[in-house]
């Protein structure tokens, strides 16, 4: 298994390098440059020239990319062109915020989707199964911003239970923080649980019909024991893979949720940086997102192997 992990890590480094080159090239293709984006409609030819000089935008694209790569190798992510501050300092707070939001979403998502998966599998073909399936599928079909706005208008405006925007700077206590991120967390969970619930349901049904579960029943074990200790571990594999994919989706999909709720996370920063053509920040964020994507997939693979004695 350590061999698997090592090869995968090597591949990961190569992917990161490729991603950085592709992203840099794509950003180059966008019209305009950071100087134009900063000055906007107030730009005059003189102020543009001065700013370009200051930001080193007069160098060729290749030179700028290799400069960036060289300083990255010495551990320096560079300085944001627009915010004029070190990239690492700039993005670390945002990464922490997004990780917090995603973390809470996962914390809710895993037990909920496993529980719903079990219920739908046990009551397959009955009312509970149909009702839950329809509801999770509806949530899956709705875009996140629709769910988000729906939740805001119901829980923040009509009922006034929760604050509409996740302005987490306003939190003075852990409880307030929870209230502020409740709606975005629920939005994320609602948008992504359908896959896992369906996957959980399918694989559990398969396992429940297998001969060893029948054997366990015949031994006279109580249903909950059969479910939790015999059926569930074997049914978890596909659900874990789906969860890994979902986490990867979340890293990108959280962009929309962050915008709807004004959450100060990595997704909104990415959008902001692209609209300013702030290349060092865009590259750093893509590195982090790609890294997280690779890491979650690797972790999922390892978990699946650990859960399955045959692969261990």
């Amino acid at each position: 298994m350590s061999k698997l992990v090592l090869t995968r890590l090597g591949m990961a480094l190569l992917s990161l390098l490729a991603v950085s080159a592709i992203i840099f090239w794509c950003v180059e293709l966008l019209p305009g440059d950071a100087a134009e984006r900063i000055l906007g409609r107030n730009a005059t030819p003189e102020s543009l020239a001065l700013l370009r000089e200051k930001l080193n935008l007069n160098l060729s694209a290749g030179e700028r990319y290799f400069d960036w790569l060289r300083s990255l190798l010495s551990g320096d992510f560079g300085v944001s062109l627009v915010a004029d501050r070190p990239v690492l300092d700039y993005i670390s707070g945002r990464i922490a915020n997004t990780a917090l939001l995603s973390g809470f979403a996962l914390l809710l998502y895993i037990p909920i989707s496993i529980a719903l998966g079990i219920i739908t599998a046990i009551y397959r073909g009955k009312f509970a199964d149909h009702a839950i399936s329809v509801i999770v599928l509806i949530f899956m079909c709705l875009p996140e911003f629709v769910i988000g706005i729906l939740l805001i208008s119901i829980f923040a405006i009509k009922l006034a239970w929760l604050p509409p925007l996740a302005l987490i700077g306003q939190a003075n206590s852990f409880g307030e923080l929870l209230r502020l991120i409740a709606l975005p967390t629920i939005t994320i969970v609602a948008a992504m649980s359908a896959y896992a619930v369906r996957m959980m349901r399918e694989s559990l049904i398969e396992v429940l019909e297998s001969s060893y579960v029948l054997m366990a029943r015949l031994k006279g074990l109580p249903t909950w024991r059969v479910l939790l200790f015999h059926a569930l571990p074997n049914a978890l594999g596909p659900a874990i893979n789906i969860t890994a994919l979902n986490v990867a989706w979340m890293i990108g999909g959280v962009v929309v949720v962050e915008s709807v709720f004004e959450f100060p996370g990595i997704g909104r920063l990415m959008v902001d940086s692209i609209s300013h053509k702030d290349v060092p920040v865009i590259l750093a964020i893509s590195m982090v997102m790609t890294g997280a994507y690779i890491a979650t997939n690797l972790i999922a693979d390892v978990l699946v192997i650990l859960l399955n004695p045959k692969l261990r």
Partner: protein
Amino acid sequence: MYGKDILRLSRRKLLASAGAALAAGPLATTLHVPKSWAQPKVLRIAAGEADGASGTMDPAQSTADPDAARISLVFERLVVLDDSFAPVPQLAKSWESNDTGDEWTFKLQEGVKFHDGEPFTARHVVHSFKRLLDPATASPGASSMAVIDPSAITALDDYTVRFKLKSPTVEFPALIANRFTYIVREGQPESEMRTAGIGTGPFKVKSFVPGEDVSVFVKNEDYWRPGLPKVDVVELRAIPEESARIAAIQSGQIDLCWDLGRAGIEELKKNRDVKVVSTRAPFVLTLSCWTDTPPFDDVRVRQAMKYVVDREQMLQLVLRGYGNIGDDNPVAPWVQYALQAEVRPRDVEKAKALLAEAGYPDGIDIELYTSETTPGFIEMATLYQAMASEAGIRVKLNKAPANDYWSAVWLKQPFVCSSWSGRGADEALATPYMSTSDWNETHWKRPEFDAYITEARATLDVAKRTELYQKAQQLLRDDGGAIISVFPDALGASRSNVSGWKLHPQQSTKDFSEVSIG
């Protein structure tokens, strides 16, 4: 790696909230304004334009709306404008010019101090204007004040400053009441100007980091106008999504916001906890065409394009009535020097006749660029398309992305939606329509027009000056390439416990010194 981050973060937040138990001293500072013990009066305000990484509080570099808000909190100007765009004193007590209007002397307020205790004197004024005009500063505001000779700004004594101008400018006091001319402290290093400026204003900057969500300002205890400001802390954030801004004010997450759209105001009027604020503003919404490019190079085509507009309907459908009708003249009728004329009525037959006369009996096909960058553009363009089609002006709409509209479309395409924030008559005419302007969006170059403006600037007699400015407006209205059908009101809202707040028709002026809460 992912999981570890989550753990670290949630623990950090937990520590911070639990207080001192686990030596959380440095962590606790991440949470600002401990509301529980001191009960400072905190005013939470939200701008409507995005405040991204490009944010600044350096007056010379002010571009976005949140920049203007930060600068208004911390700095002050010699002269400010009243609601009709006439100049009134702020850091200057009084001013006078010589007989030719090319030498201006300002007497300064005494007893005013900068936030670091340094007395406000003439040398800071001299420094501020020299810095603004210095090419090395690269201020976008420099070109509009090119009339000032930077080497001839002199401090006559501690409280008297004299400006020598390159040409006579009767409207000079109003000219220096713009978003760039705030007085900064001489001796403050340039590296601090962007994030930690020292001014004389009602609030001091506590924390502002470009790209972070909240800028925090605290009361200037030594502020020179007695009894002001009325709140202890101002938290500024930007919420660009209008629906989010409305939700935030409805639920009390913010206390005050501006830049609201017409639909949002209707929604907020139903809420008893929210007060709606509106101000008549000469904000210009225009459709602008290049007058040197066919088919717009024929004045009859341009007039036809103006005759198809039903201005009342524009007002009702684009602005839901929150605004005033325009007459293809950027000087709104209530602004000083405005031309008072009968508004051009809609006349489709006349438009058709004009087109035929210009050699287009079958009408014209034109392409109009629009975008979501300014509220109202899309509605205005769509409605114009419908109105114009009746006269055989077939408009093809092209919706461009909002984030680079001003750098990629405006000044680059021959027929575009454009907007200009409220300005006094001279600036409203000169900035977009003088031959020499960097921002001549209609490519309209008329020596007579330039001459009217230049002559008006040198004419001390008010009646004669008014006449000249009005001639310029008449010429622009009849011959120019701008179709200005409406002036939208400035709209904002506050919680009902906020008082003393007024929106200023000069968009970049945001005075929060008299606002109180609770």
